[in-house]
């Protein structure tokens, strides 16, 4: 699917799109984003039980469906298109991937089936205040205590952190390496608080660890590579989510100008509007090509020697977030004053675009990361 989707993938996408049109139209998004939970448990149940979205890329051995990152990214793209508020990204994309990458067999047996069934919601507490997802700057520490470990430090921007039953946390090991740990969300020594998110459809939390007891996933060498690959896969899926949102904004803006008249003619007939629409199409198509290529690369890693997954994931994240924001700015502008109102849906995607610029690191951060991993 580097350059084309299989029929199965297309069917999966269509099925998902119909489901979301039906179960998560914008009126529902607006209703859910005002609730404390921030997602609809019934929709979440259907996503898990009826559609198997929570199981997509989890290996069959651990209760998953054993599909690839490509399918996961398709789901993220459709969720982004619909602006679905749900713990899908935090639990399925981020936390499950971290466990699958870092955990040993017993840990995966213990933790993944619950996430895969949707019964357990997990969250990945890695980023820290101010410094974000740069692992070199992670300051939270883990110290051994008997058979287990105790974590101390502050985490922030934890996606779906309040909804989570299970937390995967990144902390520095005594030797300086990075460890990934799991602990129940209601553990003693772990306090969490919701953050005020600019985008009310993306729920974030901060977490304070004060000697909270936790289990190290895999060995002491597992955390570093597992985090790197988790960030890659999350960036790829976020790119998918963003191109889904950008395409929706582009289509809606085009529909709006095609329906509206000004000065006795269709707004869509103004050459400047036409050229802007053409540029928007170009931008979104280029960003899609990157998102799809990177997702495919995640599934056949190592095939593109010049550009390993980390380079491609960062390329896709950077270009998708620039495109999403630019598309959102154009979309508001094409709507005119009405596009700036709360009642017009454009603003919902605008805020998601704004939030996505920063989530997992800015485009500039990822361009730098892309070159660090580029082989040439």
């Amino acid at each position, binding site marked *: 699917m580097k350059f084309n989707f299989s029929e199965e993938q297309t069917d999966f996408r269509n099925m998902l799109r119909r489901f979301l049109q039906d179960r998560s139209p914008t009126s529902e998004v607006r209703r859910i984003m005002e609730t404390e939970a921030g997602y609809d448990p019934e929709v979440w149940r259907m996503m898990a039980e009826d559609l198997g979205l929570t199981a997509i890329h989890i290996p069959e051995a651990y209760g998953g469906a054993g599909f690839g990152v490509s399918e996961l990214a398709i789901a993220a793209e459709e969720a982004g298109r619909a602006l679905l508020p749900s713990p899908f990204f935090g639990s399925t994309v981020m936390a499950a991937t971290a466990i699958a990458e870092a955990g040993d067999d017993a840990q995966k047996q213990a933790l993944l089936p619950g996430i895969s069934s949707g019964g357990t919601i997990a969250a990945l507490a890695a980023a820290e205040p101010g410094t974000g997802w740069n692992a070199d700057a992670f300051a939270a520490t883990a110290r051994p205590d008997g058979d287990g470990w105790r974590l101390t430090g502050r985490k922030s921007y934890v996606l779906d952190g309040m909804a989570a039953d299970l937390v995967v946390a990144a902390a520095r090991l005594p030797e300086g390496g990075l460890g990934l740990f799991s602990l129940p969300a209601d553990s003693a020594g772990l306090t969490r608080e919701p953050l005020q998110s*600019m985008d009310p459809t993306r729920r974030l939390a901060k977490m304070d660890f004060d000697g909270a007891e936790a289990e190290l996933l895999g060995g002491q060498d597992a955390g570093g590579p597992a985090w790197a690959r988790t960030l890659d896969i999350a960036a790829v899926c976020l790119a998918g989510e963003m191109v889904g949102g950008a395409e929706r904004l582009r289509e809606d803006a085009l529909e709006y100008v095609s329906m509206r008249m000004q000065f*006795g003619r269709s707004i869509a007939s103004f050459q400047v509007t036409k050229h802007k629409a053409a540029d928007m199409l170009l931008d979104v198509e280029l960003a899609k090509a990157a998102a799809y290529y990177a997702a495919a690369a995640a599934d056949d890693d190592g095939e593109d020697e010049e550009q390993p997954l980390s380079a491609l994931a960062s390329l896709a994240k950077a270009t998708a977030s620039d495109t999403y924001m630019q598309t959102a700015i154009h979309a508001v502008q094409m709507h005119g004053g009405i596009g700036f109102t709360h009642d*017009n849906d454009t603003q919902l995607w605008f805020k998601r675009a704004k*939030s996505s610029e920063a989530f997992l690191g800015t485009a500039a951060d990822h361009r730098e990361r892309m070159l660090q991993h580029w082989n040439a």
Partner: protein
Amino acid sequence: MTDFTEDDIRAEVRDWLTTNWDPDRGLVEWRNMLIDSGWGVPHWPEEWHGRGLPVGMTPVVEEEFDKLGAVGVAKMGIRTLAAATILEHGTDLHKQRFLRGILTGEETWCQLFSEPGSGSDLAGAVTRADLRDGKWIINGQKVWNTSAHHADFGLLLARTDWDAVKHQGLSYFLLDMRQPGVEVHQLKQMNGHASFNQVFFTDAVVEAEYQIGGLGEGWKVATTTLMHERRGADGVRRYATGSDRPGRIYEEERAEVATVMAPYVWYPQRTGRADMLIERAKEAGRWEDPAVRQEIAKALTLARTAEWTARRAREAQQMGRPQGPEGSIGKLAASIVARACAKAHTMIAGPDAMLTGDDDGTGGVVAEILVSTPAISIAGGTDEIQRNIISERILSMPKEVRHDTDRPFRDVPRNQVG
């Protein structure tokens, strides 16, 4: 009153103020005194609350007010547009009825031009005014009406002739907002503020004598209002506050300012806040990041060059030189500045750009910047309209061929308002 010098004026106003100014008076009482003396609006005609002085003398008079901290007549908001329009086009009845209330601040106004179906195309208004039994009956819908939710009167542009061509079928009305046929809804924006309203008319009534200007000449009258609006726009872009001195009159004035400025409370953020960039970068620990520095430098450069360009325009004007293109490009420059600043603020904030309110590290100021900057390229004429104006009026490029001004308005394709 034609033989006087600047010094004469200065002495005269100072005398009058010394005798009469007292910060413990009520605001309305004081303004009525100003109106009676003519010192409130010295360039207005003597028969209408002024002294018939040349406009150039007004700053002189204001300086003397400022020296004592004396409060002036009500000057902010849409009321100034109402006053200018009524002075130029109104009948004696209109002037009699409205000017004093405008100047004392007791009656407030809103502008009822824009409509949901026409956007920047103000002359495409389809709100209708029909003459029935000697009264105008108004039906339709307006939008983007600042302060309409507490306005006493509205400046209304409505269509009275559907067979005339677009600009010639409109008439202009002074409408009483406090009546059953007028319904006002506040319009919430994506940044959470509600600076505008929607106004719905269902058989609202305007007495025949409160139509202003000739029948079908509404566009001409509206041009006066719009000209004063453009002139005042620079002022509105800055957020005003009242004096912080003690005294009853200052308290009353502060309350008035707060009401008038409420819709504009987020306007500083709309500009992108170039002034905050360096300090924010230092606070956020990103001042040393070369990629961030490039964006900060770009934003500061645009902000400074836009400011210098505006000052070039102002100084040329003050020196009586023909204004160059720098005057008309300010609005467009402001959009570019705001976007560059939003980009730089986003990079500076890093992950905190996802947050708002108490959590974004700036009490929500940066978050408000990020969701407010899109407004600057729309409100007061979109970027596209500005580029049309620049290319046609400054660069003398050909106008777009119009398809809406060459036929009865009835036949012009237009939106269905739903």
